[in-house]
């Protein structure tokens, strides 16, 4: 990794080449992506409906799955070459996840939920407390809720806490999977504002996956699963657009 060309490669947050994936026992490919890359700091909207293979792609990108063929480099690390434990550690340290729902363990308090991520990143108690109260305050989660069980919060509150959970360890890569689908329009706009402008630093790479085209305007780059995933190009009439 001494040459200039290599340095350029290493500045990619996501670098996917000739990626193929088929679920075991399944003949046909779920994913077939010849190339997809995302430079560090870029914010990309990935348009995809359910069944487009986006969930599989996200799991491959985070190292929960390993590709059947091809390579995935995340932050210059080849996930397929790592051990299972190393991938878990890598995911804990480098990646933040926000899902459509079930972002929080329902029986843990907000702080306990955040603490799980903090502990995985070996944050000291002091650092964790400071970071948690900073994030939650900026997300306008009232302090009297912090020790409440997560399942006592409204969906909007839960999604805001989910941002805090995903960002508590300053991840290099933030992956959001339909985080606004459960929110109404006002809450959705507020959520996007918080996520993109107030909380993430400029060097945080964001991969935002949604079927909601209205959100495209928040991003400077847009990709579509239909174009990325060659497995979908095979005539398949069951594919429905959102």
């Amino acid at each position, binding site marked *: 990794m001494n040459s200039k060309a290599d340095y350029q490669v290493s500045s990619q947050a996501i670098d996917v080449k000739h990626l193929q994936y088929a679920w075991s026992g399944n003949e046909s490919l779920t994913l077939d992506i010849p190339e997809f890359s995302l430079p560090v700091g870029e914010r990309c909207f990935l348009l995809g409906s359910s069944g487009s293979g986006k969930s599989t792609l996200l799991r491959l990108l985070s190292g929960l799955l390993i590709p059947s063929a091809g390579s995935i480099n995340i932050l210059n690390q080849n996930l397929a070459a790592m051990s*299972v434990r190393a991938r878990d550690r890598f995911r*804990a340290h480098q990646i933040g*996840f926000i899902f459509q729902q079930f972002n929080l363990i329902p029986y843990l308090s907000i702080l306990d939920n955040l603490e*799980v991520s903090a502990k995985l990143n070996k944050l000291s108690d002091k650092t964790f407390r400071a970071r948690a109260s900073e994030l939650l305050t900026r997300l306008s989660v009232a302090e009297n809720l912090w020790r409440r069980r997560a399942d006592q919060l409204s969906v909007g509150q839960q999604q805001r806490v989910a941002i805090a959970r995903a960002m508590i360890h300053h991840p290099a890569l933030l992956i959001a999977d339909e985080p606004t689908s459960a929110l109404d329009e006002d809450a959705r706009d507020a959520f996007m504002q918080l996520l993109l402008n107030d909380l993430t630093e400029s060097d945080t790479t964001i991969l935002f996956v949604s079927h909601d085209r209205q959100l495209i305007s928040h991003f400077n780059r847009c990709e579509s699963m239909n174009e990325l995933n060659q497995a979908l190009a095979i005539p398949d009439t069951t594919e429905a657009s959102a």
Partner: protein
Amino acid sequence: MILKLAIKSLIERRVSVILTVIALAISIAVVSTVEHIRSEAQNSFNRTVSGVDLIVGPRTSSINLLLYSIFRIGTPGNGISSETYQLIASDSRVAWQIPIALGDSHQGYRVVGTDNTLFAHYQFGNRQALTFAQGQQFSSSHDVVLGSDVAKDLGYSLGDEIVLSHGIAEVSFTQHDNHPFQVSGILAATGTPTDQAVHIPLSGLAAMHGAGGHNHDQPAPNEHTNHANDDVAVNNHNEHEHEHEHEHEHSNNDSQQAADTNTGIATVTTLPVDITATLIGLHSRAQVFTLQQAINNYPGEALTGVIPGIALAELWQMMANVEGLLRLISVLVMLASILGLATMLLASIRERYPEVSLFRSIGVSSGALLLSIEAEAILIAMTGTLLGLGFTAIAAIISQPWLSQNYGLYISANPISGNMMFFIGALLIATAVVALIPALKLYRAARIVSR
């Protein structure tokens, strides 16, 4: 962190967790109660008598004689005659003997007719002698020496007058109020059946049972002559013994001495009443077997001589099968409740899938999730164990007075013994192993995350 998550997760599933904990606690309580009573009974029995080389009573099984003479369990059979007692006293190998006459009670406590030899020679535990908490030994036939529990439970103190009744029922129709007794001494607690005994001198017992109105301080020597038949037997015996034992002159001396000091209060050799058994201490323990054999073969009266340690060993041997069976039942009960625990956890795995998926996404390893199930299982097992041991301790405390009064059993409240620690260790290991079933199921689910 895993422990904290396990605790919160258990609280979340509290209803099924509590039921499982209770099931475990009950089985632990059963196991530890059985084990505790077994070990404490042995301990209690073993420490009840010490320093007594031979127990002599009428012909019966050795265990039976041991049980009623020492532990006051069961009903004594016939007595042994005064002549036999004298004969034993005259044997050169015998250092001392304590006469025991049972059959009466006072408010549910056994009355033990004896003499001052008891206080001088009876030992319990690790060769500890009886000591007086208050007062002193018998000095008249109206004296009574109380065991510590009797004094405490009935609220007697020195100088109190006591009326004894005949028979061992708590309420008796025949009350011997013509021969009242006065508390002369109260023994220090021993943790043995002695604490439950009301000790009176044999002369007092004789007076109580004899025709009313006679001189109590004279231990009715005329009663002695009633045993004409026994006299013949003893005479026969004396001749018989004479052939191979050279102790006749000794015996004469002792009789002479006994006649001088025979007040029926101090050490007696001529008994005012028949006794139930006699406890013998020897000059040399090595002679115990020959003396036992002589007693068992004595033609004058059907006698049994019992060496306490050997009779106890026989008793434990007899109990060994029952113990084994109880142990087996305990193990099976415990196994059943561990399986119940595993079932409970297994049923909860499916509802954990969403959280497993979330934990995996944020970087929690599959191994940590497996450990969290193991932690939950161990936490349940430990809580159940502590609760079960608590049940046992409470049961021991509650049943202690009843056990000591009815069976002469003194058990401690602490159910944790070496055996029990072994049992608990085995339980925790078995729990960890059986909990692998749900834990591995969760582990596999964690490896194949489906969201």
